[in-house]
């Protein structure tokens, strides 16, 4: 069953020079009980995409498309409706998780302030839950009575994970939660996310990263973005073992011996630079860097083509014009 269905979503940034087309017609779905991975180079629009689901603030503008979350279109919710479902149904662990907690408030006070905003009335119950969850992530329950400044960076990260998931959201967005961590801590964080899923604390996770190797570990299905567009989407195993899009292939071949060495590896090593999102080309956005570019690539946009069971990619090499 689909928890979230995104259809042809367009999220732009309004700037003095025009619209930055950071997310330009993206469609995918996240099912109940799965971890959905999103990967792509820095600046391809990953954060823009997931943040637009939670909170759109200027200069971010919604230019079209839908995001159906449990039957409601997130793009059309009123301010108050959207405020209400945040945290209780849809939550996020932000990229800046280590600094996300107000340094001068005790963690239990931060949690209580937030829980109260969502209609909770029993402070003791909320605190009991907090302590229980803190123990679950291997923190002392005393952490609840501490100020975030009294914790180390890694402890703060874990505390933020507890805070973000405390009200059992159905869908959890984890935006680059592992990027700033060393390998061991990365593994711990991944473990915790799995644990949250097993315990039924969260039903589905969107896991955003630029580390493809990590997705292999955690994601059931994944999507690769390039310059605001989906280039490939499918079950993780298939995408990683049989990549269909030239960009995915290049990404994977630039990884140092996949599966053996999980070194923090940024998606680079592909010659050339991504195109400007202010004036993207009409055709395939990857043609400036694609080693196989065809004549029609700069002018004709490739559509997503089915390449396997639930596996799609957008490239002219894969045929599909006749569709």
């Amino acid at each position, binding site marked *: 069953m689909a928890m979230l269905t995104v259809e042809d979503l367009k999220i732009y940034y309004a700037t003095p020079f025009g619209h930055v087309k950071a997310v330009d017609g993206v469609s995918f779905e996240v099912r109940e009980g799965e971890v959905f991975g999103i990967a792509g180079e820095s600046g391809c629009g990953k954060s823009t995409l997931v943040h637009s689901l939670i909170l759109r603030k200027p200069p971010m503008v919604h230019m079209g498309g839908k995001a159906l979350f449990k039957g409601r279109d997130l793009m059309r919710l009123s301010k108050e409706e959207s405020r209400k479902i945040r945290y209780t149904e849809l939550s996020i662990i932000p990229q800046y998780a280590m600094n996300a*907690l107000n340094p*001068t408030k005790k963690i239990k006070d931060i949690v209580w*302030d*937030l829980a109260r905003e969502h209609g909770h009335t029993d402070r003791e119950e909320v605190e009991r839950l907090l302590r229980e969850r803190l123990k679950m992530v291997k923190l002392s329950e005393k952490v609840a009575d501490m100020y975030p400044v009294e914790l180390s960076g890694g402890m703060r990260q874990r505390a933020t994970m507890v805070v973000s998931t405390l009200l059992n959201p159905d869908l959890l967005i984890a935006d680059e939660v592992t990027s700033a961590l060393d390998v061991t801590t990365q593994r711990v964080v991944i473990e915790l996310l799995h644990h949250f899923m097993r315990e039924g604390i969260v039903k589905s996770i969107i896991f955003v990263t630029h580390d493809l190797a990590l997705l292999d570990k955690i994601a059931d299905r994944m999507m690769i973005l390039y310059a605001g567009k989906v280039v490939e989407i499918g079950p993780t195993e298939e995408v990683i073992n049989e990549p269909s899009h030239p960009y995915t292939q290049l990404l994977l071949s630039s990884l140092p011996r996949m599966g053996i060495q999980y070194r923090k590896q940024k998606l680079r090593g592909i010659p050339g630079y991504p195109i400007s999102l202010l004036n993207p080309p009409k055709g395939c956005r990857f043609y400036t860097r694609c080693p196989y570019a065809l004549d029609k690539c700069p002018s004709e946009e490739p559509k997503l083509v089915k390449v396997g069971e639930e596996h799609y990619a957008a490239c002219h090499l894969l045929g599909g014009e006749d569709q």
Partner: protein
Amino acid sequence: MGFRRYMVRKVVVYGITFVFAVTLNWLLPRLMPGNPIEAMVSRSGGAASSQLIKFYEEVYGLNQPMWKQFLNFWVNLFHGDLGYSMLYNAPVSSIIKHALPYDIAILLPAIVLSWLVGNWLGAIAGKNKKYDRYTMPLFYFLASMPYFWFAMILVYVVGVKLGWLPYSGAYAPDLVPSLSWTFIKSFLSHWILPFLSLFIVMIGSWAIGMRNMIIYELEADYVRYLEALGASEKLMTKHAYRNAILPQVTGLALQLGMMVAGAIATEIVFNYPGIGVLIMNAALNQDYFLLQGAFLIVVISVLAANFLIDIVYAFIDPRVRASYTEG
């Protein structure tokens, strides 16, 4: 616990500062060109015969070796003996004792109330851009005014032109300080203008500080996080205000010296019988004992206030305590 280390450190630092200030006070006249005693004697009338000067030098122990003079200085200080004022013909300590309450009467309410009002206004400006556009230049203008000049304007407009309030002295000249109703009424009406002149100018700098802090805090990651988790505008503001107001407490300590200086000049405008007028008279009449005594009292008061603020701050801001627990 980190709090003890914090306290110990503070006590040491303030102790050293105190010793330094006293030493400076002792050293300065001895470093300066000219002979202060000579100047003082010739000021208080009569030609300064060398015998008279010698006499005074003996009285003040200036013929003793330097180390002994220094020691005596400390001993006297701890006995509350700050020397004798030739200008007022009275011990310096008793003159200061009579002046100090007036300073406290205008400075303390001015600082506390301006802090509250200024922070409140600044917080509104930081939140509301429309309002900010008009108030920000006003705050900067207020903060740029010399206290004593604004005091002069108040005297001229409210006191002289409108004739609403008295503007000279601390009470009507025909009264004697007592707890009578007439005296209190007279005291209060004389108090309003000096108080206002400090209060209004101080508002400017608090408001600026708070406005900048709020803008900074509202952009902080923890506010973004609260918003992402569905916090209401009210809750975000509440968290941001709290963090913005904390540095303003430290600001209190940093600005104190400036404000005291402002009060000194302001008292002169109103001829208000506090330390400010003493300092002016002492400086203009070369009454060095009085001047030194006043300097010491001001420094000690400022140090004490700073110390107090530092301790309060450690209680209210967990960041300070945390920085002393680690390592």
